[in-house]
Every structure is written in structure tokens, then in C-alpha cells.
């Protein structure tokens, strides 16, 4: 800041700074992209495991390794892609062939099965929809009977931390386990209640979970998209139950 400088110098200086900063950032972004994408993919797989009820953290709360996640995926989990309109599995299609738009529009539906000794014991599929501020992404797993919930995770959202953001917390997700979504031949509407289940249904209710206080709209959103995604997959599940 010695002497005043001319306009040309100011503009030139600004231009040099901008170019230098952008070159540096682009270089960093492109070098780190592969690693970041891998992390996002690993996180997604970790959440599929979590929905299936596989322990993804050891006793000290440390997350299991990427190699371990890949191993479980290879040995126990199979992926099929269903046709959104008919609910039939599409032969020879893998998740790599499904575009983000086809996923968002529910044209193609990915389904994961968890197998033990060659027997399918659980099913999981992605669920997503609007909360209050953002789209919430998660996975819902059903037990072999295709009528009760084995587990749920919500892993990506932009809800208010401490209010709607509580959807990512264990206490909220634990409540889903064992809830009934199918009975007497039809889907039972699932509900995230406002307040607690005990208050709203004093006689008990096995297809509702406690809401999050201060996050009624987030809860309504979760209710809505879980039911609509369950209905999408029902085309396939009804065939499975028939056999």
C-alpha cells in the first residue's frame, strides 16, 4: 500500500489474483475428485449395510474399513434393478447403467437383497423425498416376510441441525425397526406422528413411530416419501409374497 496505483494496475492485479486462485482450485478439485467420489460411494454402501442391520461401527465407535464394506457387499449382498412400471427385474442391468434422473423419477428401481446361506433374508431399497428444506435420502430394509421393517437410515439431508436434522440420529431410526407396513393383503400406511405414538394412539400402533419435536414438517415429508416408495416397490414385493 505504498503509492496510489492506476486503474489499469488495479484491474490487472485483480485479474492475476483471480486466475491464480481458480487455477489452484481447479487443480485441487480434479486431483481429489476420485478420492472424494470413492468416499461418497463408500458412505452410500455403509448406509445400505446399516439399513440391513449390519454393525458398521465397532465397540469403540470406529467405522469399519472400506475393504470390509466391499467384502460384505461381495459376499452377502446382491443388487437387482426393477422396472418402475411393471416391478419386474431387468435382466443384465446394473446400477452403473441407471442414470440419476431415472432414479429420481422412479423409472428404474434398485433393490438390494441380503443373503445368508443362499437364502434371501432381507430386502433394502433407497427412499428419498422432500423434508422441510431439502431432499432427504435414505435406505429402508424389510424383513423376509416383506411386511415388517428391518431397519432404516437417512444419510443425506439439509434439514435444520437439532430439529429436522435428527432424522440422521440413531434414536429416531431405531424406532422404525419391527414396525408393520403390510397386513391382511394390503400395504398399511406408515406414519411418523406429531409428538409421540403413545399420545396419539393410547391403545398402541405398530405402524407409527415417534416424531421429532420441532420438526413436524420433516416428519410429514418422511411419512409421505416412505409410503410412496413402498407403493413403488409393492409391484415387485406382491409377486414375491405370492410365491
Amino acid at each position, binding site marked *: *500500500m*505504498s503509492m*496510489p*496505483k492506476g486503474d489499469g*494496475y*488495479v484491474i490487472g*492485479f*485483480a485479474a492475476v*489474483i*483471480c486466475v491464480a*486462485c481458480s487455477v*489452484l*482450485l481447479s487443480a*485441487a*478439485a480434479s486431483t*481429489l475428485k476420485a*478420492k*472424494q467420489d470413492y*468416499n*461418497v460411494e*463408500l*458412505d452410500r454402501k455403509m448406509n445400505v449395510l446399516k439399513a440391513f442391520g449390519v454393525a458398521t461401527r465397532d465397540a*469403540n*465407535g*470406529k*467405522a469399519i474399513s472400506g475393504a470390509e464394506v466391499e467384502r460384505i457387499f461381495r459376499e452377502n449382498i446382491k443388487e437387482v434393478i426393477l422396472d418402475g412400471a411393471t416391478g419386474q427385474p431387468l435382466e443384465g442391468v446394473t446400477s452403473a447403467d441407471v442414470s440419476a434422473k431415472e432414479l429420481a423419477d422412479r423409472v428404474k428401481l434398485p433393490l438390494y437383497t441380503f443373503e445368508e446361506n443362499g437364502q434371501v433374508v432381507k430386502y433394502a431399497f433407497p427412499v428419498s423425498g422432500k423434508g422441510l428444506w431439502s431432499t432427504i435420502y435414505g435406505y429402508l430394509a424389510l424383513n423376509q416376510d416383506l411386511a415388517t421393517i428391518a431397519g432404516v437410515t437417512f444419510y443425506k439431508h439439509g434439514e435444520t*441441525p*437439532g430439529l429436522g436434522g435428527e432424522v440422521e440420529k440413531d434414536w429416531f431410526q431405531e424406532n422404525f425397526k419391527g414396525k408393520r407396513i403390510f397386513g391382511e393383503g394390503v400395504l398399511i400406511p406408515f406414519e411418523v406422528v406429531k409428538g409421540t405414538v403413545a399420545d396419539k394412539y393410547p391403545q398402541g400402533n405398530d405402524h407409527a413411530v415417534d416424531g421429532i419435536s420441532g420438526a413436524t414438517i420433516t416428519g410429514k415429508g418422511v411419512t409421505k416419501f416412505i409410503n410412496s416408495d413402498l407403493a413403488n416397490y409393492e409391484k415387485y414385493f406382491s409377486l414375491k409374497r405370492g410365491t
Partner: protein
Amino acid sequence: MANNLKKTIVDPLSDNNPVTIQILGICSALAVTTKVDTAIVMSVSLTAVTAFSNLIISLMRNMIPGRIRIIVELAVVSTLVILADQLLKAYMFDISRQLSVFVGLIITNCIVLGRLEAFALGNKPLPSLLDGLGNGLGYSAVLVAVASMREILGFGTWHGIQLMPAGYQGNGLMLLAPGAFFGLGLLIWAQRQIIKKFETA
């Protein structure tokens, strides 16, 4: 000279601490201090950003046109912050998720811009680097102290290690914003008592 350099780095640790004495950077000090892990990563990120932005601005201090100096400072700071954020996303995904927006918000942290304006623009590169380092470490010390208190009382652990006896019921208040306010307030009071620095009303 050597004494001056030492003072540059030691002063902000206590006598002129950016958080407890100058009351800067409070927002992130409240937000990311529920666990020691996140506090440490946040501290390292902020210290790196403060130190390097001080260094870079100091190197350019005779070239920066006075009329656009804030813009230039912000461009440098935001570049460094985005770099830090990208590195965390690539190498510490879990923690970067917990820190969420707060790494990005280092851009708006008053400590960073404050040091650039108050120090780096008028001093040589080496003292500026040390000044940034000192202020970053001063911020870190407060963050880790508050986070230790909150994690021990709130979860019964420190850095993930169980400290409280089994069956300890975590104090939920400590994990919410009020717990951070109480903790930080007590810390500011204690420190000002010790170094005898009082506001003259």
C-alpha cells in the same frame, strides 16, 4: 528481534487471545465443540488458513492496491478455505460431514480477516506467518478446552476414550448450544481473572 518474534506467537495464546480476550470467532467455537475430534480438525484447518493467508498477503503487501485490498484478501482466504474443505472431504470424510458448513464458514471468521488487516498488511512475511500461527493456536486452545469440557460432561468420553465410570448418564445440556455458552463464558471469566484484564466501562 528474536524476542519480538516470540511475542508475536505467544501473545495471542493467552494475553491477547482472539477468542477469550478479543471475543472473535465465537460462532464456530460454539458450534463445533461437542466433541474433541471435530474441534481439533476445525482448529488445524483454521490455524492453517490464518497462517498461510497472513503469509501470502504479507508477501504481496506492497503490490496490493489499497482500493481492492479486502476483495483480494477474501479471494486468498476463500481459496485456502475451499482447499482445506476439499482435502477434508477426500481424506477425513467422516469428520468433514460432522463439521458440515463450518469449515466453509472459516471464510467469515473474524479472526482471519482481522489478522490480515491488522497485521499482515503492515509486516514482513515471517512475523506475519508467526502471527497467523499464534492466533490460530490461541483459537485452537480455546476450542479444545471447551470441547473437552463438553465431551467429558456430555458423553463421558474424551477423544473417544471412556473417562467417566460405566453407567454415567451424559448431560444433554452440555451438548446443546447453552452448554457451549456456559463453558465459554466460564473460560473467559477464569482467564481474565488470571491475567487481570478487565474492561474499563
